[in-house]
């Protein structure tokens, strides 16, 4: 036999033995492998040793040396396997029938989930933040000046009907007259503009309240996001462009925006903005150029500055995105519902 063949035979035995001992999970299977490779009568090493005789005489010292190396390797693998089984997974010394089951579930930490409305709000804040809009906050309980008058909604406007609003019975009458739960987040625009000279570039978000009977698409409390940009030289082209950037960021691909004329007391021109989505136009929200009366009401000069504003319902965006069909599910707080998001 050529030396190379003999060495090849030894190497094969070595790797097969290592694999067998490593795979052995208990002492019985180790024993099977021991007899197979190290058995005194029919072990594979014993058989190989017999082959030593047929190697050329000149190659014998080298062949013998290699044989001893491989024998040591196989014995070491046997020892390692025996030690492993004796100490490890078997749960103590001695023999055990227990087998580690790698398919058992891991120990999962319980993670809470943020409400889908919060997740939507965070995303909207994030997008608008990148477009340079900072978040402004304002009270949910408002006076008529901020909820109506400064927004160009006169006293005889139907939107001010007591039945269309949640007016409050406050013990002490506010100096600003009766109070109500705000019906829109535009109130924050007024408060910010009253306090800040232009330019103003803000979004306001939060709860708003309108008397609606709760059903699948209505709830007397919901969330709005409202954006406002006032500066010199702000045009409707800026409005359209910002809404397009907003919609593209939110939907993640190239979106177009179209305007349909509409009517809101606090903007003029007023439009409904639609965005193209999967070849359909879907309603995005109301928008427009800030009405000069609103600018005047906060002490801005409508000939010096102009601005745009837009507002959207957050529930609608959230429900459409997650395929939620009943708004009331958002406020039940069933943890199975919350854990979906």
């Amino acid at each position, binding site marked *: 036999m050529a030396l190379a063949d003999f060495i090849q035979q030894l190497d094969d035995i070595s790797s097969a033995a290592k694999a067998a001992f490593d795979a052995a999970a208990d002492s019985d299977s180790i024993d099977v492998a021991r007899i197979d490779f190290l058995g005194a009568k029919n072990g594979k090493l014993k058989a190989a040793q017999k082959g030593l005789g047929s190697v050329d005489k000149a190659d014998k010292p080298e062949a013998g040396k290699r044989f001893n190396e491989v024998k040591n390797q196989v014995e070491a693998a046997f020892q390692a396997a025996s030690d492993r089984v004796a100490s490890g997974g078997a749960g103590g010394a001695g023999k055990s029938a227990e087998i580690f089951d790698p398919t058992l579930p891991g120990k999962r930490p319980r993670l809470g989930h943020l409400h889908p409305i919060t997740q939507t709000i965070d995303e909207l804040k994030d997008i608008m933040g990148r477009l340079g809009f900072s978040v402004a906050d304002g009270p949910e309980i408002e006076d008529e000046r901020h909820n109506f008058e400064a927004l160009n909604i006169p006293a005889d406007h139907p939107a001010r009907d007591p039945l269309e609003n949640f007016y409050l019975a406050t013990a002490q009458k*506010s100096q600003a007259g009766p109070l109500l739960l705000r019906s829109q987040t535009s109130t924050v625009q007024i408060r910010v503009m009253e306090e800040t000279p232009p330019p103003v570039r803000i979004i306001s978000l939060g709860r708003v309240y309108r008397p609606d009977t709760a059903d699948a698409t209505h709830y007397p409390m919901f969330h709005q996001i409202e954006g406002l940009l006032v500066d010199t030289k702000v045009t*409707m082209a800026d409005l359209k462009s910002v809404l397009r950037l907003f919609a593209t960021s939110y939907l993640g691909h190239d979106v177009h925006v*179209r305007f349909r*004329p509409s009517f809101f007391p606090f903007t003029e*021109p007023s439009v409904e903005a639609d965005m193209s989505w999967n070849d359909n136009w879907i309603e995005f929200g109301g928008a427009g150029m800030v009405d000069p009366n609103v600018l005047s009401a906060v002490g801005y000069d409508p000939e010096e500055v102009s601005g745009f504003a837009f507002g959207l319902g957050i529930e609608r965006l959230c429900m459409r995105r997650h395929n939620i069909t009943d708004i009331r599910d958002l406020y039940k707080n069933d943890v199975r519902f919350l854990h979906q998001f």
Partner: protein
Amino acid sequence: MIVSWNWLKDYVALDADPAEVELRLMMAGLNHEGTEKVGDDLAIDLEVTSNRPDCLGHIGVAREASVLFDAPLSVPKATPREGTASVSDLTKVRIDCPDLCYRYTARVIRGVKIGPSPDWLTNRLETIGIAAVSNVVDITNYVLMECGQPLHAFDLATLAGAEIIVRGATKGEQFVAIDHKTYELSSGTCVIADASRAVALGGVMGGEVTEVSDSTTDLLIESAEFAPVSIRSTARKLNLHSPSSYRFERGVDPEGVDWASRRCCELILDLAGGELAEGVIDVGRDRTAREPVVLHFSQLERILGINVAPEEVRRILAALGNTETATDSEKVQVTGPSWRRDLTREIDLIEEVARIHGYDQIPEDAAVPMCPSHRTDDDRVLAKVRNVLTGAGFDEALTASVVREAWSDAFSPWTDTAAIQSHTPTLKGADRLRRSLVPSLLGARRVNESVSNPTIELFETARIYLSSSNGLPREQRTLAISTGGDYGTLKGVIETLIKTLNPACHLDVQATRQAFLDADKSCELRLKDQLLGFLGEVTPAGLKAFKLRAQTTIAELSLETLGAIANLTPQHVDQNLFPATSRDLNLIVDEPLRWAELESTVWKSSGECLESVAYQDIYRDTKRDGDEKKRLLFSILLRSASGTLTNKEADKIRDAIVAACTQQHGAKLLG
């Protein structure tokens, strides 16, 4: 507003197919809601915004189409043939309430023959969903839907004294309407009366006694203008909403009142015969002349971001019915048409030009200047709070801001002042602005228990509403937590929260008494000298009140206080690289001794090398230690800034701690 396609084409010749007309109308402000085929006609549903009552009639919609398609608009002249008898000899009209009724016109037709309307008329009414009644009634409805001006036909013979008095109702006055129901009126309601009683609710509904019947021969045709606010409140109070009240609420064309009357009479003469008395009775206030409005062409670019050619601007404004009174290269001056009382300012004209010229002309790729934005500290704190709580396994709930009285009263740790009430409840019975989020979270627990959810760990961040003696009420941003775990579990979460916001901050507790919280296992939480909030296990009575089965612990914290202590920009401190040594201590102490007191002694007596004190456990072995004794197990971690501590040095520190605890608290070292 439902528009009949065939009818619309009476006023404007349209070559375009209906779909294109619908689209163009929508893109100019009349939102297309849908179209239905009715016979050989189409019923096109258009949404009309509240500023455009002129489009609540076919002529108004036709005018929009004529401007958009640049096709001429033709409106009937309405010139009924008059007879010889003078109307003023046949009836008289007086307005006693000029603030409720601005203008009242009456015409008289005698000798009509009531009967069915011809097919063309009934078909058109049917297309737009109005049932045919009789020729005279159908004609009043037809003219209403033609021009948007409501009309009423009285049976002249039934009007006592053959006269009309427009007046405010007396309180409690009874009125039998055309629907045969009796209504009790309140002052402020505008009634049309004859010499003896109310015969109609002005602009809202006719009366039973004076309605046109088959035997009617003489008619008084009313065409009037009523005050929108009065109409709205009457319609709402009596729940009587009609196409007429809808139009009066939005304001009718003051110049269209007489046209509608003439048009109505013209059609009655054609279809029901009779003779029209000469002249009209027209009482009420004078129409004020419209102020002209100037539009500077440069304003179009300033507001819209696009240029519109002056000729196009002038064409649009004229086609919409504005009268141009002056123009030069920079501006145009117009007077708005009577049916467009919303056109009073330059910006109103800009919007008109924009919507007709087309918003699709406005680009969507303008270079909006960049601008820095910043995250508010409130939002940064809130993000940390949410991270800690979701990491600790809590789900975020969102609950209603307004709650029922029972919930409002159940738990109010922040204030004793009564909750603010809303006049109308938001949801069933809920009319108290909440003073605590906790009852809402307990309500959410109940929802979850009812569907057998095994783990209910909830938090919410929202505002609570606290009355204030002046100005707006205080809205405190608040965090509430509810867990199925015990006091210690939730306290640990709060401690982790505090350590995340500011590791240097220490949480203190004080006794508190709160309804529905266990007297012992509850506390007021404090940071430095500020009130942070409340924590406690809910009592069995509390669980019962919220119909809860399983134990729960709640906490409510002020987000404002958390924000005040938050360190949003932590500063690096070099870490000591010498190894630490720990020692376990097991001290027998008196039962009343609190951990916080012992821990304080440990810190004070340990010198510079104490890095941390970790509470381990409490055991009680009364047999060996005696009654009212407990064993406090804790460990200390020691590290020196100047080198590795030897065992001897560490033992010395431990011994000093034990000595201090023995001296101050009578503690005894065990083992």
